[in-house]
């Protein structure tokens, strides 16, 4: 794992979302700030043959999967130069050719879809695994439980990644979900599972890589729970329910600052390299905004194109 690249990727997500959140012309957004290590750790363990599907909180995962910031920004701002002509937008972006089969903003709604993609792979003898990234909110939904069972009996090449940010809008995970660890949900189906610190990009990467290897060896699906902390409220239009002291403690867990400190201590990250990364990230975000702003919206006629 290239740790400088991981740091760069996490910094890009943070800067991208921060710039996007400042805009007023996007309706609202589901930010993943604070959860960058989950997206980057998982995606750094994937290959070009793999496919990633996510829930609605998908900006970080899309960027970590390697989608161009220009295209992502254009899609989120509803521009026709987005990968889905601005018609998918927030929560529904997709670029299967880049290994990002896509987001789907129905909680738990993309899990059975991912299993179908995995079945197609398996029957077609195609290489690569399918990763479905979902939040702890989806762990209460029937879809996950049905698909865990089927994925196990059909030994699908499917990696379940639960980004457990411990909040469903305002409802704490402890008030919504009975299992002690969410990875326990996989145990009943004999699915290999693990829980890791989702604020530690190295731990996430190692666990995802190990799971991916096992899946590719034909061991069937695996389940990875990454415990994380959301830095923003549920969406940019949702009020924050956590108090100042709690938020201060949450922000102190920053996965970017954590990797930065580790790399600085080891000497791998120098102030020069960090300044360079910051410049690259800022330039990429500025370029993405400029690209999106210069792009047209789809024509009104497109309201009825590609319907059926």
């Amino acid at each position, binding site marked *: 794992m290239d740790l400088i690249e991981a740091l760069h990727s996490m910094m890009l997500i943070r800067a991208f979302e921060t710039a996007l959140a400042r805009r007023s012309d996007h309706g609202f957004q589901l930010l993943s700030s604070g959860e960058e290590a989950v997206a980057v750790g998982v995606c750094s363990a994937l290959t070009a043959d793999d496919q990633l599907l996510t829930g609605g909180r998908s900006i970080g995962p899309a960027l970590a999967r390697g989608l161009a910031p220009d295209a992502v920004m254009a899609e989120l701002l509803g521009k026709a130069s987005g990968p889905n002509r601005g018609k998918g937008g927030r929560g529904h972006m997709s670029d299967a050719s880049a290994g990002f089969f896509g987001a789907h903003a129905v909680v738990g*709604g993309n899990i059975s879809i991912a299993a179908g993609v995995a079945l197609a792979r398996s029957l077609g003898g195609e290489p690569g695994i399918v990763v479905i990234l979902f939040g702890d909110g989806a762990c209460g939904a029937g879809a996950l439980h049905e698909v865990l069972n089927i994925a196990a009996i059909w030994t699908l090449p499917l990696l379940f990644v639960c980004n457990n940010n411990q909040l469903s809008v305002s409802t704490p995970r402890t008030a919504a979900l009975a299992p002690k660890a969410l990875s326990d949900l996989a145990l009943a189906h004999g699915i290999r599972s693990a829980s890791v610190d989702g604020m530690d990009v190295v731990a996430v990467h190692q666990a995802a890589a190990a799971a991916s290897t096992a899946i590719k060896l034909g061991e069937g699906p695996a389940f990875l729970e990454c415990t994380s902390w959301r830095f923003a409220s549920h969406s940019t239009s949702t009020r924050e329910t956590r108090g100042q002291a709690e938020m201060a403690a949450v922000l102190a867990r920053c996965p970017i600052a954590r990797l930065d400190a580790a790399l600085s201590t080891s000497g791998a990250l120098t102030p020069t390299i960090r300044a360079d990364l910051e410049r690259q990230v800022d330039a990429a975000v500025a370029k993405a905004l400029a690209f999106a702003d210069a792009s047209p919206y789809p024509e009104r006629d497109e309201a009825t194109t590609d319907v059926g």
Partner: protein
Amino acid sequence: MSGEPAAATERLFFREAIGRALREEMRIDPRRIVMGQDVGAFGGSYREFEGLFAEFGASRVRDTPVAEAAMVGIGVGAAAAGLRPLVSVTYMDFIMLGLDPLVNYGAKLRYKTGGRLTAPVIVKTTSGARGQGVAHSQCVEAWLMSVPGLKVVAPSNPADAYGLMKAAFLEEGPIVYVDHKRLFPIPGEVPLAATVTPLGLAAVLRRGTDLTIVTHSFMTRTAMEAATAMSAQGVSCEVVDLRSLAPLDIATVSASVRRTGALLTLEEGQVTCGVGTEVAAQVQQRLGPIPVARVGALAAPVSSNPVLEAACLPDAPRVVSAAVALLGRRRSDAPRPVSRKS
């Protein structure tokens, strides 16, 4: 049609016609698979999948757990990723469990990806009442007609059961194929040659001059029965079998109603927001005000109790009496002297 040589046919039960179409399609392309409850060695609850498991094996004819939401979702996802799956939902009542992946994902996929992905999945499901009670008898195809991006067909005879299944495999997006419990054991002639029944094309099954009856699925048989009964009373009914509900062939229906001047819609489902309601509205948009009657099940659950089930469902006498009332109304309306104030 007269003048053309009759195409060679074979006599098949409705269930066999479905099976033949699936067998042919699965032989063409290994990406075509069937999944659902008891579709494997058991051959389907109505034996419509008989023989497929033996020929294509457990990998392509997949028994699933009782989990309709996951089954439909997996079918939709597999379709989006390049397979051509048919998902069998044994009772249409349980399609409700699979509506999230079908409606929220499958029907919108082409749109939301800007045309880059589509989900050509067939969801085959069995509607209709035959003594199985309030949650195993419903005809909810009208619900599905209003979903942009979703197609819906409902054959009434073996030839169309075959031809519409063939058509379903040509689709680029999701399609719901509605069959009916009472149709499975019904025989009919099916062309020996591979034949596709085009989507969006209704069939005029009987020509008439006084009234157009528009129907689909098993109720087509009820409509024909009613038309025969009315013929004895000197009323000439035209019967149109929609075959395809989305897209809807309103041109054929309108042309018929223009000739007959009156429309009776007949379905086994509910008339409120039903197939007939939509048909009537679209016909009147084209033709202006016309006399319309809608016949469907009573606004009540369909019991497994034989007396109550029969009381709830439309039958030929109910169609005849609705038709007589409709035509009586038209006659009483028509000759009324009109005071012309110009």
